[in-house]
């Protein structure tokens, strides 16, 4: 069609403004998390008894908290921890879950059956509840947040990749590879994986939001990152007691979390669009 041909000539940033906004937000967030020391004017954990609960001003952009700590500096430094949780809590399930899905889908059989049954049962449970239950067993702390999310998160990827493998298994080029006598390992890694991994990666982009929010929720409940470490959920939790007279402690960390979350969601949506058009 003519319209279609014309569309191609328009540069990508003009047709997908939302995707570009997403990329800008995510890149900015990553830069902040790498170089907080160049942006934050104060030490995030430095107590200042002379400036307690000061409202936002030129000196303290986001005000100060009950220990006189600069909220802006805390929010900036927190980006490092929150992004870390978002990214690393996603990467491990992405890799492990995809491999499990690949193997289960390719070989099938009893193991696949049992595995999928267990995943189906566990996945009907809310993510938050599963993570909290595991946190209860493991105890509080940042390391345990990772472990809890890893233990729960891989299942979605396994299911997703397995579904794709089942479709692909009967494709002609896989048949051809098998007839040629390639080993299972080669077929799985060289032929299957490149074709199924894209949907898992796209899912991961929005999964980062879920993992980041879950990590922050755990810290908000007091189960995760412990004070005085700056983390968005933890700062919000500390600010909750002062909500009546110091709204800035809760407002700004949440705002940063919301913007980062929206950035990753836009990125994920944009990637999904690309995948869909590629598929057609």
């Amino acid at each position, binding site marked *: 069609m003519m319209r279609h041909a014309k569309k191609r000539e328009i540069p990508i940033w003009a047709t997908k403004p939302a995707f570009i906004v997403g990329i800008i937000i995510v890149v900015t967030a990553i830069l902040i998390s790498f170089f907080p020391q160049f942006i934050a004017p104060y030490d995030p954990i430095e107590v200042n008894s002379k400036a307690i609960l000061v409202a936002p001003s030129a000196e303290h952009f986001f005000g100060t908290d009950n220990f006189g700590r600069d909220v802006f500096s805390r929010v900036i430094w927190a980006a490092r921890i929150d992004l870390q949780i978002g990214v690393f809590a996603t990467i491990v399930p992405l890799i492990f879950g995809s491999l499990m899905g690949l193997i289960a889908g390719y070989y099938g059989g009893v193991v696949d059956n049992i595995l999928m049954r267990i995943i189906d049962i566990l996945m009907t449970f*809310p993510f938050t509840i599963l993570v909290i239950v595991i946190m209860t067993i493991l105890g509080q702390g940042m390391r345990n947040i990772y472990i809890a999310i890893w233990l729960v998160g891989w299942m979605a990827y396994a299911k997703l990749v397995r579904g794709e493998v089942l479709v692909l298994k009967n494709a002609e080029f896989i048949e051809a590879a098998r007839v040629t006598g390639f080993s299972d390992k080669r077929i799985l890694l060289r032929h299957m994986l490149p074709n199924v991994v894209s949907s898992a990666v796209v899912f991961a982009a929005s999964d980062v939001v879920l993992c980041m929010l879950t990590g922050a929720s755990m810290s908000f409940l007091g189960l995760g990152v412990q004070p005085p470490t700056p983390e968005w959920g933890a700062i919000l939790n500390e600010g909750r007691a002062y909500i009546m007279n110091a709204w800035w402690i*809760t407002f700004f960390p949440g705002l940063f979390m919301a913007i980062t*979350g929206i950035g*990753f969601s836009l990125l994920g949506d944009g990637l999904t669009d690309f995948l869909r058009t590629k598929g057609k």
Partner: protein
Amino acid sequence: MNGLNYILKRILQIIPVVFIISILIFLMLRAIPGDPARLVLGEKATIESIDAMREKLGLNESYIVQYGKFVKGIVSLDLGTSLTYQRPVIELLRSRVKITLMLTLISTFFSLLISFPLGYYAGKYKDSMFDQIVKSGALAAVSMPSFWIGLLLMILFGVKLRWLPVGGWGNTFIEQIRSLILPGLTMSLLTSALLIRNIRNSVVDISNMDYVDFARSKGISERAVKNRHILRNALISTVTLLLMRMAYMLGGSVIIETVFSLPGIGKLMVDSIFGRDYAVVQALVMLFAMIILMINLLTDIIYSFLDPRVKF
């Protein structure tokens, strides 16, 4: 009847699931490092009372016997005693579960109220300004932390405007409903966003179907086309999604109830984890699991009735 058979089959399918879940929960307390008797009694317990508790919990017996007793306890609703409250766990649950169920119902109500008009008109006027705004709003709602939204609503309506209570629970019914409005609204945002996307997309898809064009060309009024064809079909997937979301809202109750200091089972869960009140935690996990299984069962049954294409 075939429908009855299907329901029976689905109920029977739940039995192995309940079995697996009960084993997982049974193992949960034993997976926590330390002596379960000490975990149940707390750090300050004396050696004698720990020995007595070990005997009572049957920890000196084999795992199979222990598991049998555990199941017997659940069936006879004897869930142990809360360490923090010094009351039978079952009593504690009975007084708390009502609040969480009310919260879930209110937020379901809000979700429907928000998502149907927005989703329908966004789908009907696809790609319009309105559609763009609704779509962006939905995307923002799924990307934001619910506890932050809750705190913002609290600052605005509780602290600044003073229209609604900042948190806590009331004594009279009116007070209770008032204290559920803000948490219910907070909880409904994520669900609304997901429902809006679903309703919008099904309205777009269905409006392009031949039979809707056909209905219009027959001269049926726009209103009848909307009610009889478009909304009815959008309803099937939406109801299914909504029921599934109710299970997730229960999970969200842990956070929302903490934000608004609502004494429901979600807050009880957090308090019990901090108080190392493991008898309560165990009972709550079991309760959550049972409610979620029931919701799933209900979803499947309702879905099979709504969508005639499902074969029994």
